């Protein structure tokens, strides 16, 4: 063994040590990241490490666990194990089931705790300690934006998990960050026509909005889309994130002349506010000669489970649902169901797809260099991953695809069969110009390879 003189990074040394095992008595070598060529955490051994940063504790831990399951499945498929899942239906055939660029995929996991600080700390440790070349995951927009900014600064790719706020690819967009999940605007745009059909164009809406960033953008999106239909917004009230009992916010709704309640809530907030709203008999109420209705703009099956019976008949939107019958979805549900015994959630789906898309982009770019990956993903069009034809738009790194409008199922046949798809809103209907006011401000900047 001679001295290793090529640009050093943690992984290469790790592998050199592990493989050779003879490098122990080597003289010391000093190097600085600023001098080394190439890019941060360049994998030089036979493996490549991805960082899965999901909430393992805190209110979204179950969603995080489902994301982690999907990532493990994706890693299996990328490494050529298992049945291949959506690799078989993916329109791009660059991936060969031998890892990424011939390197076996390994992963490290971290806990975001659904806190910006903790999420960044865990992402940093994966980058600095474990040499992760890409960070992905998360189940809230605050965390997604915070980690995306970190990855931009550090110089690795960030493939967002479940994040629905407009800002992730709006004012907080970053060149190194990509979002497959849909967003508040798309929810509003997809929901509005369905709501018009179901409830007419003369409605008075009352919004309860979780008092944080995601709540604001969702309220704005739904309000603007429904007002465009002719609905009137009677009142918008912000509710504290920490609230568990929403009765004090629900009862004023009874006294307003609103006939629709929009719950811009997610997770535990949504479960509790919806349960309270139903308890207070809102759904049995008649106002202005119409049945009182409740809408939940962002639905998730895991949350619907928490709300139990109360979701029946309530409209919302979702990124993906396991009952979709396209080949990609079927393959994914089959593969996931076989391994874990229950169908995947939308969080699992989007993270699985993100992992595949990243791997495919590296494969097509022929490098792990973030700038190469960014180039390969920008403007990339694909199909077969469960949402129909999809475009990764270059201007804001947002995926444009069909959006599902769903409704709580009246007669579920199993514990997983809680939502039924009412309409698949085509991508064209939810597409907006990159400079749409809801997304204004901020700039992508340029890709950062970190070296």
């Amino acid at each position, binding site marked *: 063994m001679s001295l290793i003189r090529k640009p050093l990074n943690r992984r290469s040394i790790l592998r050199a*040590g592990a493989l050779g095992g003879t490098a122990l008595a080597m003289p010391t070598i000093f190097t600085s990241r600023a001098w080394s060529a190439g890019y941060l955490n360049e994998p030089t051994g036979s493996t490549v490490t991805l960082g899965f940063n999901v909430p393992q504790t805190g209110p979204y831990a179950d969603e995080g666990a489902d994301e982690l399951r999907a990532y493990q499945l994706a890693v299996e498929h990328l490494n050529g194990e298992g049945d291949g899942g959506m690799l078989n239906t993916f329109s791009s055939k660059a991936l060969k089931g031998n890892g990424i660029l011939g390197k076996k995929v390994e992963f490290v996991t971290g806990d975001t705790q659904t806190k910006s600080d*903790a999420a960044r700390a865990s992402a940093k440790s994966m980058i600095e300690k474990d040499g992760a070349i890409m960070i992905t995951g998360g189940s809230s927009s*605050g965390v997604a934006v915070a980690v995306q900014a970190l990855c931009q600064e550090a110089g690795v790719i960030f493939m967002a998990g479940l994040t629905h706020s407009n800002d992730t690819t709006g004012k907080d967009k970053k060149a190194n960050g990509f979002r497959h999940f849909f967003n508040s605007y798309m929810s509003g745009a997809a929901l509005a026509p369905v709501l018009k059909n179901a409830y007419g164009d003369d409605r008075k809406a009352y919004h309860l909005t979780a008092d944080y960033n995601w709540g604001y953008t969702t309220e704005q999106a739904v309000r603007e889309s429904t007002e465009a239909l002719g609905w009137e917004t009677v009142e918008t009230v912000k509710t504290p994130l920490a609230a568990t009992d929403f009765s004090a916010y629900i009862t004023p709704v009874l006294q307003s002349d609103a006939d629709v309640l929009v719950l811009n809530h997610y997770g535990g907030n949504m479960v509790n506010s919806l349960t309270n709203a139903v308890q207070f008999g809102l759904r049995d109420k008649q106002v202005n000669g119409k049945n009182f209705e409740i809408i939940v703009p962002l639905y998730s099956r895991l949350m619907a489970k928490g709300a139990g019976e109360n979701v029946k008949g309530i409209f919302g939107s979702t990124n993906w649902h396991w009952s979709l019958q396209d080949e990609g979805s079927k393959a994914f549900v089959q593969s996931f169901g076989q391994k874990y015994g229950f169908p995947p959630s939308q969080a699992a789906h989007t993270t699985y797809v993100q992992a595949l898309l990243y791997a495919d982009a590296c494969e097509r770019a022929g490098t792990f260099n973030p700038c190469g990956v960014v180039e390969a993903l920008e403007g990339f069009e694909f199909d077969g991953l469960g949402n129909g034809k999809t475009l990764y738009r270059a201007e804001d790194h947002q995926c444009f695809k069909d959006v599902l409008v769903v409704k709580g199922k009246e007669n579920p046949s199993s514990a997983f069969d809680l939502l039924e798809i009412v309409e698949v809103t085509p991508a064209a209907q939810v597409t907006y110009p990159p400079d749409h006011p809801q997304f204004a401000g901020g700039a992508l900047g340029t890709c950062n390879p970190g070296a």
Partner: protein
Amino acid sequence: MFGLNKKDTSLFFLVLLLVVFAPFLLNPFPEGSELAQFNAGYPDLMQRFLIFGIFAIGFNILFGLTGYLSFGHAAFLGVGSYAGVWMMKLLTMNVIPAIFMSVVFAGLFSLLVGYISLRRSGIYFSILTLAFAQMSFSLAYSVLTPITNGETGLQLALDDPRILGVSSENGAIPPANFFGIPMRESFEMSAGGWLFTFNAGYYLCAVFMMIAFYIAVRIFRSPFGMMLRAVKSNQQRMNFTGLNSRPYTLAAFVISGMYAGLAGGLMVAMDPLAGAERMQWTASGEVVLMTILGGAGTLIGPVLGAGFIKYCENIFSKINDNILYGWFSGLPEGVADFLVFVIHPFIGKGWHLTLGIMFMLIVIFLPGGIMEGVERIGRLFKRKSSSDKNSSARASAAPAE
């Protein structure tokens, strides 16, 4: 030396050595070995050790000396962080003005909170500080979003003015730096299978930490420090001795608030984002736990407590089943399965459980925290050596009879 007595000087140099050589000490396992999982010598965690060490040292000046248990110190750290990020947004990416303003703002805020809260003592004081901190957190998360950027946390943007610096460099936000040295910059040194990282940010933290530690030692040994201990011991007597305890406690409160602000400023200097969660009561609780775990009222205990908790948080939470199977790969499958089954609840997402159990064990068996453990071990050795002496003394006395 530096006005410290001999014992404190050697303690100071011990801490200095530990801090300077931490990149070696925290990476005892060669890269690629199974135990590398337990290495803590990467910049982010090392910075955190020092930053939370500073936070805990400051908290200890209040709690350890005066006995006033504040449940709101995270608010000062948060205010410091926000002030720091705003400095980087408005002024320059040089971290010094940011850190300076962090300390100033945290000091001012703690002056306000302390002035009101110190009208009460005991648990009433604790609840008052808790109430202030929770109000700060709730408002920062919601209504104050224009200042704090709410849930996401206050972060830098490409179009920030930065009037003394540049808004952007080649399409990127310029890195936080100390007169041109980026905080992210690291030297890596490899020796055999080992890899050691020397990070610029870490050493900046180290400088501040040593200053903070030095000031704390001086305060502990000063008349002022003695008065603070007097507050804890008997406030009544203090008042009848001609001392006004309120300004003493307030000064201690503000000093510890400024330490918290310094920690907040360093946090954003290392990683320029300030999240509202760092003001939550659980974050305040964390520094209480650090201080008590390490040993309240001792000089170095809080630093050890901070290191202990941050280590658990960052290392245990990252161990998953795959890694466990890796460790036990030499064992028969059934045994490995069983071991993984037993350990599983305590690692990865179960790290809170481990932390909770450790807290309980330490509080039950070592009320004085880690420092008491160290002392007990020390005493054990001393007793052994002194009993040796006794026996040798007896032995030498024997022939004379």
